[in-house]
């Protein structure tokens, strides 16, 4: 039997996404075998990250400084704010490199069954930002789900008093998608969102 320290390590690793008890055991063993080259640097990196990473008070992004690097970057277009559900969505959009505006992380979606209401989301911060004169457009990049779109409609209502254009991401055929393999919901959305060609 392994010692309590190793068991604790395995239990904590098993809580990570993608790892179950068996794979956590393998990961723990791998780390212990590479104590100097992997385990110590990893634990140092994790400790430093835990101490340094903050939530940006402007947009809700995660970074080592507040405001985050994106909010503080003067080259970003302050006229555009892209609203996303989670930080993971921000990272996905940043990977594309095609958006040069600012972001706003809501922190989830409205969910009646999960008890998530407007007060649980960072909506007030968005309204305050949208009221600034330099902001001209708010892009709602919510997931194409019932909860995501319900939240998008709610935010659109809340932004009605702000002098900004509200737009949303297109719904439809993905790049490389073949119509024959698409579900009827995506095809319905694509047909409804068609535009002159």
């Amino acid at each position, binding site marked *: 039997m392994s010692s309590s320290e190793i068991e604790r390590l395995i239990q904590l690793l098993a809580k990570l996404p993608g790892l179950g008890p068996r794979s956590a055991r393998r990961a723990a063993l791998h780390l212990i075998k590479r104590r100097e080259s992997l385990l110590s640097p990893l634990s140092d990196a994790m400790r430093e990250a835990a101490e340094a990473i903050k939530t940006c008070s402007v947009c809700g992004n995660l970074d080592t400084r507040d405001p985050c690097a994106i909010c503080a970057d003067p080259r970003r277009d302050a006229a555009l704010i892209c609203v996303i559900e989670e930080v993971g969505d921000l990272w996905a959009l940043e990977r594309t490199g095609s958006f040069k505006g600012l972001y706003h992380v809501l922190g989830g979606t409205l969910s009646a069954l999960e008890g998530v209401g407007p007060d649980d989301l960072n909506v007030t911060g968005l309204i305050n930002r949208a009221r600034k004169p330099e902001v001209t457009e708010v892009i709602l990049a919510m997931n194409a789900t019932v909860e995501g779109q319900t939240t998008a409609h709610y935010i659109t*209502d809340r932004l009605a008093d702000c002098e900004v254009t509200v737009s949303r991401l297109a719904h439809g055929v993905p790049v490389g998608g073949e119509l024959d393999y698409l*579900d009827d919901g995506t095809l*319905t959305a694509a047909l409804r969102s068609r535009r002159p060609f």
Partner: protein
Amino acid sequence: MEWTDEAIVLSARPHGEAAVVATLLTRGHGRHSGLVQGGRSSKQRGNLQPGNRVSARWRARLADHLGTLTIEPIHNNAAAMLDDPLRLSGLVSACTMTEVALPDREPHEPVFHGLLALLEAFETPVWAPAYVRWELGLLQELGFGLDLSSCAATGTNDALAYVSPRTGRAVSLSAGEPYRDKLLPLPGFLAGHGGWTDREVLAGLDLTGHFLERNAINTGSGGASGQMPAARARFIERYRKMATLSGSR
């Protein structure tokens, strides 16, 4: 244990990294939940949106186990409503009300057919009165149906205009006039008069809301939490706003 049935998706909650616990309203097995392996995948997620009509296969070793569900799409109702805030809020409200009001695993075929009819009505201009009628049907199926056939005081069925908030029985205009502040208005389209207005739909929602809250939600039956779901309040707020903006007929 195994069955295959037609169902409507009510909700899907994440379970672990890849699975979801889906709650369905089935034709013959009532409100039923089950684990959908891979339910968070891009392939499955679209099928598990509230309001979608699916074919469901449930399997478990024992009847009282959560069991696993295999879902095949029949018709994707949700996608057609994503761009329409009012209908979308109505859809979410209907699915949430079904989930919180119905007891688990108790067959309620009329509610299934009612919700199916409502989903079809969402594609027509008369979906709003259909929604009110659906909530009346939900009350009826739960055993708290309103008696709108005749006046509780006079026994006649002329000029029914109110509903007693205590008994759920209709009251005529003349008999109810002295107590009008204590009675709930009965919309004309529920009293058998033709046509409907946005104001009547809102009155109908107040009427059904009163009895749903008292009889179906606050009793703790089914998945009831004791409070009317916020989704229904948001739907009514949105409807009221739309009615105000359009000058309310």
